[in-house]
């Protein structure tokens, strides 16, 4: 039973940490309708900044806002390339992502490891002072949970502000934003900045958790983010009251749980991506079926 508990804890922790990335993708893909590939670069950017700061003896908590600022800058770059230089959304993201690959290596030098004698956010005095007695996996779960809940609440509150409302409007109907005498380009840039700050935060926490930065850790993160957002929003499409952030969070946990299930079942890793694809397709088809089913009910009613 302990085995199961441990697995649930460590898998949930992964799901939570990566949910921050899903929040970011939720903002660009679902709210802004902007397929942002910057993610593959801003995720390791957060980790690179964190690894460098940690190996230089910085306070572990300080790495979180600094990583977010770096991610925000990456989002700003994509936004400016798209809005000011009028490069297509997909290409703007690809350009920044490609540049970030080099920038990440410039920042970190090469792949970096944080030694065990260096304190991460999970082992810092602040956390051990009130969670000291519990084992590390519990601490990782609780700290990630607190961070994710805090970010989620802040995001949900932001979406209710005037600025947040305008952000939601720009993806929904950008013509209306222009009619409101607001520059839709600026609103998109704000969205990209917030999104990539969150993605970099996720990368930063992964670096804390793994004590490692690798230049290739960003590969495939966009796909992961899209998958989790689509899984989450498809499952919850019937429930208007469920926040998009909640859906993304659950999507991330389900994704990681499926991976862990595949590992536990002993499925060959070379097939994991295929399994992901099948899962993805199944959920989409299920979602479409539900939509049609609901539509039929409505017609009959």
């Amino acid at each position, binding site marked *: 039973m302990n085995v199961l508990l441990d*697995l649930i804890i460590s898998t949930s922790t992964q799901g939570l940490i990566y949910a921050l990335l899903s929040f970011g993708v939720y903002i660009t893909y679902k709210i802004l309708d902007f397929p942002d590939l910057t993610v593959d670069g801003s995720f390791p950017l957060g980790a690179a900044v964190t690894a460098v700061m940690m190996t230089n003896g910085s306070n572990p908590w300080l790495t979180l806002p600094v990583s977010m600022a770096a991610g925000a800058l990456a989002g700003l770059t994509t936004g400016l390339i798209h809005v000011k230089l009028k490069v297509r959304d997909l290409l703007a993201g690809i350009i920044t992502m490609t540049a970030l690959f080099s920038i990440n290596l410039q920042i970190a030098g090469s792949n970096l490891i944080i*030694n065990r004698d260096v304190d991460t956010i999970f082992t810092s005095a602040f956390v051990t002072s009130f969670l000291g007695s519990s084992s590390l996996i519990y601490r990782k779960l609780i700290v990630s949970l607190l961070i994710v809940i805090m970010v989620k609440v802040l995001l949900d509150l932001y979406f209710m502000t005037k600025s947040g409302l305008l952000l939601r409007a720009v993806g929904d109907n950008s013509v209306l934003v222009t009619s409101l005498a607001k520059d839709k380009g600026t609103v998109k840039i704000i969205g990209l900045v917030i999104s990539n700050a969150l993605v970099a935060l996720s990368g930063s926490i992964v670096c804390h*958790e793994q004590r490692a930065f690798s230049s290739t850790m960003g590969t495939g993160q966009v796909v992961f983010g899209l998958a989790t957002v689509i899984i989450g929003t498809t499952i919850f499409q019937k429930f208007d009251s469920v926040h998009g952030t909640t859906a993304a969070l659950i999507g991330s946990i389900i994704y990681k749980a499926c991976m*862990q299930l595949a590992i536990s079942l002993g499925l060959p890793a070379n097939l994991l991506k295929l399994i992901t694809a099948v899962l993805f397709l199944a959920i989409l088809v299920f979602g479409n079926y539900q939509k049609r089913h609901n539509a039929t009910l409505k017609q009959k009613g």
Partner: protein
Amino acid sequence: MKKLLAVLIMATLAISTASCAGKDDVKSIGISQFGEHASLDNCREGFLQGLADAGLKEEEDFTISYQNAGFDTAIATQIAQNFSANNVDLMCAIATPSATAAFAAAEDKDIPVIFTAITDPVEAGLDSGNVTGTSDKLPVEAQLELIRSMQPDASTIGILYTTSEPNSVSAIAEYEAKAGDFGFSIEAIGVTAQSEVTLAADSLIAKNVDCFSNLTDNNVVGVLPSILEKTNAAGIPVYGSEVEQVKKGCVAAAGIDYFRLGQKTGLMAAKIITGEAEASEMKYETISEYSIYINSQALEEMSITLPDDLTGQAIESSEN
């Protein structure tokens, strides 16, 4: 939604209870390999051989659970967490990303980790703690000596490497430090991704290097056939860094045998699971023995004749 969760939990439960079963004196070993790759596979097979050499029998003395991450660091993390949750008695990690993931997952539970196929354990932060293993540091001097005896007139050696790979960066440094002793200069070109390797090969050829020498750089080795296609056309011999590369068409290599590296790791692992030694007290070991591997067909194509003093010790390693 609830149903989905229920199914997930039930399935995980069924598996985890199944894997828990077993007697106490049978030690469980989780092998986490970063990906399917000839050298890494050799390591794993050698590891199992090493355990057998120590007189341990699978099922009676130990059980093996093998996972590979398909070269995905996030999956490597989850594999390590799976082993940790299942409280394996020992984690064997093959290649650096799997080793860092295993070490992170074992941080609290103090599960011993044994690694292999890591060039610089110090750089990878794996030199202290309940961890030990074997390092596959390249025999650079032997390689330079080999090239000198095969190509007495050569002056420049070209090397392709990945700039983000600490193993490769430290190997390049060693090449540059020692090349002078053998009258060579090094022309190294760094890449950041596998897709750049063949372009970099073109520019090395354009620089008129006398030969290529490979490291154990995954990006470069991964596209070795297309590099060889270009170098063969240009009549430039390529030296490998281990037997698998020679099998694929490199002329020769002074390389470590990954099977033997794994074997050594297996012997160390046997000491840990029998309680003979603690991983935290064992220093990691670097394999120093190397062998000379040759591919006579490739040598013939490059019209290189094998020096007499090598004919006795060289091991023929062509695939066909």
